[in-house]
């Protein structure tokens, strides 16, 4: 009797242990249109690459899904009271890398120096830094060339790797395309993050397992035991994989599939605005345009023409028809999370064909004119459709637009060339620093060697340039914000760009999940918790 009972008990225990084990295993398969280009934390500053790497490597600070900055590997930070050019970061104690080595100030200094190398793709965030130095094991000081009140905003992009590991494996340099050698960090990872790399096959799948020794376990759910990223390029296949249950979470849901997915009982769709605004730019400076039929004059140089074009765009129609509701029409080229954004600035002018026509007549173009619009067709959500719709709307006020829509690789080249090879173009802009300064210095500052690199409009105003430059020096945030506000008021009135909308993002997932849209489109899967468990 007794042995039998024992056997039964043992079996029961075994079964329940098994059941627990099953309940514990929570794999999540995550599909996105593109794969990370590399897992070197400082190799590529690109969306899908960051999305993957942030699960293995962590930064001093982190932005949550709504774009709010918070502590991560750094617990607190401040500008030294007696020296406005020095930032001090206190580091989290008790953090360990995946290989068990403790995280210290040495690793921070090493990683920042690695990210500042010419071969790193993140050096742009760190140009203001003069020196990074260790004070003690848990304190780091960053000395900047001049006062930089916003340095902390950039720290969320710089991921920290282990100094000892990089040195041991000869990966002290960020990967370099000029170098014919393969860098160890391209295929291997050792961060402090919530997931540990198991295997990676570029463009096929990347498997990670939960970091059971994760230092921040108490604050995040971290319920996923195994995380697999599979890139699926084809929209239809990616959605089919979600519907058939082969993947649990799809990052890039095409707008035309959203309505259909929402009707599926086993699928949940979340949507939200992305940190990206779509707009048109035009050449406001040249004496004469090449692509128009007006001789000896540049119609875009006249503010009334720009205002007329701005009024001709029917933004609600683009939102409804082209974007199927998945966008937020706007009157400013700044996403809503950015410092400097206000509701008043965001307001777009009402569509008014009659008034637009009279403005054109006033400017000397009663019969309109013709011009050429350049557009990308594979970069933003329905970018070609937006352009086609706009061409029709401009036609209504007599501006005949010839549309040239091309692949992003050719399109952006036209804009970046100096002088630009386009006079009227579509572009989208995200703001990784969440501050207006980023937009001003790329989009409005006069084109010089280091600034205004995306300002293909030729717009150049000495006062504006001066005000933009003052932003990077001003330590008094109230004064700084006042400068930002007055800059926007002036620039919005100038109508250098024609804003269309803020792009929205949608995620599709298994209905046991509820993953909010991340404004930077870098979903943080350590935050996932499964429902009904």
């Amino acid at each position, binding site marked *: 009797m007794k042995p039998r009972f024992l056997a039964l008990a043992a079996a029961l225990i075994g079964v329940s242990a098994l059941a627990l084990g099953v309940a514990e295993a929570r794999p999540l398969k995550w599909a996105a249109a593109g794969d990370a*280009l*590399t897992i070197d934390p400082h*190799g590529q*500053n690109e969306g899908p690459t960051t999305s993957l790497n942030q699960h293995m490597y962590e930064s001093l600070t982190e932005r949550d899904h709504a774009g709010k900055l918070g502590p991560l590997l750094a617990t607190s930070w401040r500008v030294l009271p007696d020296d406005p050019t020095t930032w001090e970061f206190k580091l989290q104690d008790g953090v360990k890398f995946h290989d068990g080595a403790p995280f210290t100030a040495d690793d921070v200094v090493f990683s920042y120096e690695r990210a500042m190398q*010419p071969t790193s*793709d*993140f050096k*742009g965030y760190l140009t203001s830094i003069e020196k990074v130095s260790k004070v003690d094991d848990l304190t780091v000081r960053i000395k900047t060339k001049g006062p930089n009140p916003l340095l902390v905003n950039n720290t969320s992009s710089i991921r920290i790797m282990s100094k000892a590991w990089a040195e041991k494996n000869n990966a002290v340099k960020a*990967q*370099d*395309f*000029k*170098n*014919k050698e*393969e*860098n160890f960090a*391209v295929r291997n990872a050792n961060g402090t993050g919530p997931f540990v790399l198991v295997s990676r*096959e*570029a*463009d*096929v*799948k990347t498997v990670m397992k939960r970091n059971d020794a994760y230092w921040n376990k108490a604050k995040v759910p971290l319920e996923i035991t195994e995380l697999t990223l*599979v*890139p*699926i*390029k*084809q929209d*239809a*296949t*990616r959605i*089919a*994989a979600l*519907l*058939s*249950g*082969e993947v649990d979470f799809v990052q890039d849901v095409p707008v035309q599939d959203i309505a259909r997915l929402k009707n599926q009982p086993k699928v949940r769709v979340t949507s939200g605005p992305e940190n990206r605004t779509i707009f048109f730019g035009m050449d406001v400076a040249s004496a004469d345009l090449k692509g128009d039929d007006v001789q000896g004059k540049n119609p875009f140089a006249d503010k009334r023409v720009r205002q007329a074009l701005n009024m001709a765009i029917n933004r609600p129609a683009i939102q409804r028809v082209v974007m199927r509701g998945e966008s937020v029409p706007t009157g400013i080229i700044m996403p809503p999370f950015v410092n400097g954004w206000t509701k008043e600035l965001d307001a777009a002018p009402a569509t008014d064909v009659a008034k637009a026509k009279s403005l054109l007549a006033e400017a000397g173009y009663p019969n309109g004119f013709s011009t050429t619009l350049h557009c990308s067709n*594979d970069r933003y959500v329905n970018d070609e459709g937006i352009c086609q719709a706009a061409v029709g709307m401009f036609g209504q006020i007599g501006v005949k637009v010839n549309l040239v829509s091309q*692949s992003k*690789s*050719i399109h*952006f*080249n036209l804009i*970046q060339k*100096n002088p630009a090879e386009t006079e009227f173009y579509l572009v989208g802009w995200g703001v990784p620093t969440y501050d207006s300064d980023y937009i001003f210095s*790329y989009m409005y500052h006069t084109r010089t*060697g*280091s600034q205004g*690199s*995306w300002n293909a409009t030729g717009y150049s105003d000495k006062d504006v340039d001066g005000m933009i430059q003052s932003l990077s020096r001003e330590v008094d945030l109230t004064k700084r914000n006042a400068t930002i506000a007055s800059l926007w008021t002036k620039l919005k009135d100038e109508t250098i760009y024609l804003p269309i909308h803020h792009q929205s993002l949608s995620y599709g997932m298994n209905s046991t999940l509820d993953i909010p849209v991340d404004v930077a489109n870098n979903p943080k899967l350590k935050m996932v918790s499964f429902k009904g468990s």
Partner: protein
Amino acid sequence: MLAFILRRLFQSLLVMLAVALIAFTMFRFVGDPVNQLVSLDTPAAQVAEIRRSLGLDDPVVVQFLRYIYNAARLEFGVSYQFRLPVISLLGERAPATLELAFMSALFSLAVGIPMGVYTALRRDSWLAKIFQAVSLVGISLPTFLIGILLIYLFSVTLGWLPSFGRGDVVKIGSWWTTGLLTGSGWKALILPSITLGLFQMTLIMRLVRAEMLEVLRTDYIKFARARGLKTRAVHFGHALKNTLVPVITIAGLQLGSIIAFAIITETVFQWPGMGLLFLKAVQQIDIPIMAAYLMLISFLFVSINLIVDLLYAAVDPRLRATIGAH
């Protein structure tokens, strides 16, 4: 004979060079690779420096000669987007493409030949008519659409087969991977193989049917019947055997195009082969991968054609005689 072989080899080499040259000229128009390499805020001076270090400022002729010199040593450079050697990237993907191509060729033969024989022998049966209709679909529907339809039927609606990927693969040797040794690997192969092989299958079926009808009318078949041989022996022993000669030629030549045109099927099913790599390279302006892939495919076609030419010479005595006369 030796002169013939040498001449053919020389011609093949010329074709390869021509392909390389055309490919190279084309790349001048796909966009600027440096823009894909640097971040938005890279100073202009640095962009120029990168362009110079990659040799993109040199005259096209110099770039071309440098490329040919390196390609001859199987040195295809480092991919711009992955920062890994192109040769190892292509090597990693080759097993997937070759396995898929082989399976779809097998499928098209194994299904196409019996269907062709059946439709030739039972011309008026309803099944033959269905086969004919199916073959029309296979010839006219684009591969892309067939793939999507199969996914929606077998993956989404029925849930029997996976919609993407290769399943679990087993590593053989240092670089070959195969899905043929796992259940999920076999399951993953079914839909892409059918999608890729459907066109070839209908081609083979129609070819077999036409040839078979032709052969059945010939004198030796009548004679065989007159000798009192069983219908079975006449059909399969005499007629089919003679039908298969052109079928094998076509199938061999088609293998090259199956490998080369797997791009679409690979994209639909996210099949991690060389075609998918190539397509992504085109979008990212990854010139080293594009160039190496085009060279590889042209090499494939050139060698298949070369082998076929040589085989013809070996098989056909008439051709041999003309070659000797030269």
